[in-house]
């Protein structure tokens, strides 16, 4: 692969290969196709890279149709900025994804909704500045002109009650696409489902509005021991392994703990490397960067490493 010289502004005839950037120093064509897959923080960074990417974002509506606002922009997103950013979709916004954007208010949400009647995925989990009534208003507005919502996320909004859920469910379930869907999203596994009509339900055990999970194992421990037909409940009612989603009996909780304080089932616990001192593992997610880079037999976790240092000093 020839090294791209930053002094050359124009391509020479030999550079015109199919699949290679025709102008060295310019972004590859394929990058333009990637833009719609970026969250807002990615789009902002890319817009500062060079003039052609900046122009691509300015002139094209496609990258702005599925807006995802997450870390680190969540806490900085406010009504005014949201209205400005969503205007880049020219009224054609399809996904409004606001994750933990606590500054957004009912008024801001409603303004965006009114200007973008085609939204069919409304994600506002953790947007604690919103009220259940505000979300219901937004959903009512969207559904008023024949638009059928596909998916809503509201986990983390304060004061959610059963009756709010019932209203929201009535607006989403009419979509024939979602009726067929059988969700396999389990606790801890990556990827929140974007097809499930609503991310929360009434937990059959505590009766609160929560994310409710099913057990990935056909005959899990709980079903077996308690002769239940289903293992279903929120994470407060049924503790689950962070890696596979299997239920963990309260008696086993102490033994199957990870350094990062996440819960592991015995099977996953056994497969993970353990700290030499406390014999606890990291879960896969928190293991990155913590394990011994030289890959030698064991490692010392960050908690035990503190004690180890103290011992040596003494």
């Amino acid at each position: 692969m020839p090294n791209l010289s930053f002094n050359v502004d124009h391509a020479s005839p030999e550079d015109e290969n199919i699949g290679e950037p025709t102008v060295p120093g310019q972004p590859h064509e394929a990058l333009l196709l990637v833009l719609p897959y970026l969250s807002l923080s990615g789009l902002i960074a890319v817009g500062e890279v060079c003039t052609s990417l900046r122009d691509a974002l300015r002139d094209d509506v496609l990258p702005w149709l599925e807006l995802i606002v997450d870390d680190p922009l969540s806490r900085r997103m406010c009504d005014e900025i949201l209205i400005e950013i969503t205007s880049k979709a020219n009224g054609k916004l399809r996904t409004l994804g606001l994750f933990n954007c606590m500054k957004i208010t009912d008024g801001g949400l409603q303004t965006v909704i009114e200007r973008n009647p085609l939204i069919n995925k409304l994600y506002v989990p953790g947007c604690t500045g919103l009220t259940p009534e505000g979300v219901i208003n937004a959903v009512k507005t969207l559904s008023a002109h024949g638009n059928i919502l596909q998916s809503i996320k509201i986990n983390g909004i304060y004061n959610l009650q059963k009756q709010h859920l019932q209203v929201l469910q009535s607006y989403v379930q009419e979509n024939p696409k979602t009726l067929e869907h059988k969700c396999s999203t389990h606790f801890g596994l990556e990827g929140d489902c974007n097809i499930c009509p609503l991310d929360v339900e009434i937990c059959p055990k505590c009766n609160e509005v929560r994310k409710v999970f099913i057990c990935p194992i056909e005959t899990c421990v709980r079903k077996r021991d308690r002769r239940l037909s289903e293992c279903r409940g929120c994470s407060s009612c049924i503790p689950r392994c962070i890696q596979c989603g299997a239920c963990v009996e309260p008696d086993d909780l102490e033994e199957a703990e990870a350094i990062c304080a996440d819960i592991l089932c015995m099977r996953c616990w056994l497969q993970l490397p353990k700290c030499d001192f406390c014999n606890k593992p990291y879960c896969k997610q928190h293991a990155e960067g913590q394990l011994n880079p030289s890959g030698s037999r064991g490692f010392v976790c960050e908690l035990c490493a503190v004690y180890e240092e103290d011992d040596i000093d003494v």
Partner: protein
Amino acid sequence: MSSSPPPSSAAASPSCPKKMIALRSSDGETFEIEEAAALQSKTLENMIDEDCAGTPIPLPNVTGKILAKVVEFCSKHAEPGVDDESLRAWDAEFVNVEQATVFDYILAANFLEIPTLLNLTCNVVADMIRGKTPDEIRKFFNIKSIFSPEEEEEVRRENHWAFE
């Protein structure tokens, strides 16, 4: 030129032989692909409907090297009875290639309108971009920034809210 063997592992029943579609790359190589696999491409699906007695479909935008891999991808994804986890692992290996190749896959998936391949490859590159500063993105993709000082100032002003 050379023709690769049919990629299918499933046996064809005698009364219903699997229909093979011939494709020709920009550099003249011919490839055969099962119809079921070819239908993953909306472009090919449209062309197959107007089929002219099995002449190879010319694909002037795709080289032989890339077309071979695209055929492999479509064939794998048309295979019956592959569980989700295995397919995900296979996909991860498929895109475990150098940057230039992933870009070629993206362009081919776009031209041939193969949503599964386009999503897979674009998400790979999106992951490369995630978390990087503009400067890091420039270095990673070998991009030269030619902003004038005024333009740079304007862009910073527009995005100031994201950095306070």
